[in-house]
């Protein structure tokens, strides 16, 4: 490269340089001197310090002990952050949706809605993403923590408020509630008449009211 041929340093300077480089701990000038057979290392240390002052590594003295360390302005190189873009898993997306539609909501409530247990890690991921946070505790036995979405959640999904999330009817209209044949999933909530005959009847409103926490058991419908 264009730099002039570097001068070969003094042998003592080289020895001090190598000694400090290989040392497992900071060394006092006396210890270095002893190691090098009693030579006076003061000048060598000063020259090394001057030489390294502009380099990526500095020779520093702390409490009479000398050691090499990374230049302070490059300290950030020692610990780098690498960002990895990851897609939210299906489970995490479902949990996030439930929090958004039902907030504030406890983990037990999320599990009741999803019908499966929610791994603790799933909520952790959503909190790491900055989309869900703990907003308090439900004043019921056990005082479970309850979760809600964050402003970052709205920002990420481009929503002015949670009210902009499509309602159940809109989801249905969009075909997002279609996968199973309607006739198979409709609810019957009829009452027994006096002849003892029960008539099953679809209740349009029940879809709204359906927060299936503590789902009514089929036995109650008789």
């Amino acid at each position: 490269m264009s730099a002039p041929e570097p001068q070969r340093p003094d042998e003592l300077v080289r020895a001090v340089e190598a000694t400090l480089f290989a040392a497992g701990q900071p060394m006092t000038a006396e210890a270095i001197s002893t190691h090098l057979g009693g030579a006076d290392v003061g000048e060598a240390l000063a020259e090394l310090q001057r030489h390294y002052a502009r380099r990526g590594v500095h020779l520093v003295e702390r409490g009479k002990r000398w050691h090499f360390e990374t230049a302070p302005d490059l300290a950030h190189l020692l610990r780098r952050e690498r960002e990895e873009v990851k897609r939210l898993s299906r489970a995490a997306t479902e949990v996030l949706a439930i929090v958004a539609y039902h907030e504030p909501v406890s983990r037990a409530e999320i599990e009741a809605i999803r019908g499966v247990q929610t791994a603790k890690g799933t909520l952790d991921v959503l909190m790491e993403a900055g989309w869900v946070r703990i907003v308090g505790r439900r004043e019921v036995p056990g005082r479970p923590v309850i979760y809600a979405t964050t402003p970052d959640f709205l920002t990420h999904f481009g929503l002015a408020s949670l009210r902009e999330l499509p309602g159940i009817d809109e989801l249905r209209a969009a075909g997002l509630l279609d996968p199973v044949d309607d006739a198979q999933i409709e609810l019957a909530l009829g009452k027994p008449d006096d002849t003892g005959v029960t008539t099953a009847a679809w209740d349009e409103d029940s879809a709204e009211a359906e927060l299936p926490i503590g789902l009514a058991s089929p036995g109650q419908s008789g």
Partner: protein
Amino acid sequence: MTTDLSPGAPPGDEWDGVASAGTANAALYLELDGWEGPLDLLLDLARRQKVDLRRISILDLVDQYLTYIERAEALRLELAADYLVMAAWLAYLKSALLLPREEQEDPSPEELALRLQLRLQRLGAMREAAARLIARDRLGRDVFARGAPEGLRVDRRNRWQCEWFDLVRAYGDVKVRAEPVVHMVRERMVMTLDSALSRVSAMLGVALDWMELREFLPPPREGEWADPRLRRSALASSFVAALELARTGQAQLAQDEIFGPLRLKAVRG
């Protein structure tokens, strides 16, 4: 020729007796522990010819090896089988090399000798290479890496990605999955257990004798009860009601044969 074969190497424990026995030849010093097998011994003997391994005399080498083995046997040392096998093979090689050959064997003794020489060269080369390798400036012995490196750390940070559609779609999936749990079939007319229980119980209270289960059902002439699906429901519910009354000690159940008529009678307290 065979004296002082392994200078410097201390004898192993099992050789102490021999070394200190002060045998006829005090300079004889046998130490087989020092050899890594017969090839190693041969190589060492070959080196003693102080010539290039490519120019060693195989016949001399064979003699040296055999002398060595003979001396060991004279001292009644127990030699490992491979040393003896090598000795036997070398004796054969020697005789083959010396005797006039009538028919050419394949491979010829000369070729065998050449192969042995090549093997010794190869082993010798590796031994020398090992010595040169091990004498290099080695990291941690002659040269040193930084004694206290700060270390580099890379912290991985996840940036999570999720689309609006995925979110909404996920909610739709949750809804769809949750709903079937509470579904019933539409417009299916049934007789509930409760109504069957009260009907059977009421009729049983006034009956005097055994009655067949079917007699408790609403008469088919009565409008909707003509529907066969509803009749099946009524029969099933009445049967369960009968079982329930029997369980609670309010009724007796009897059936004379499999699939025969099921009869019912009140228990009078």
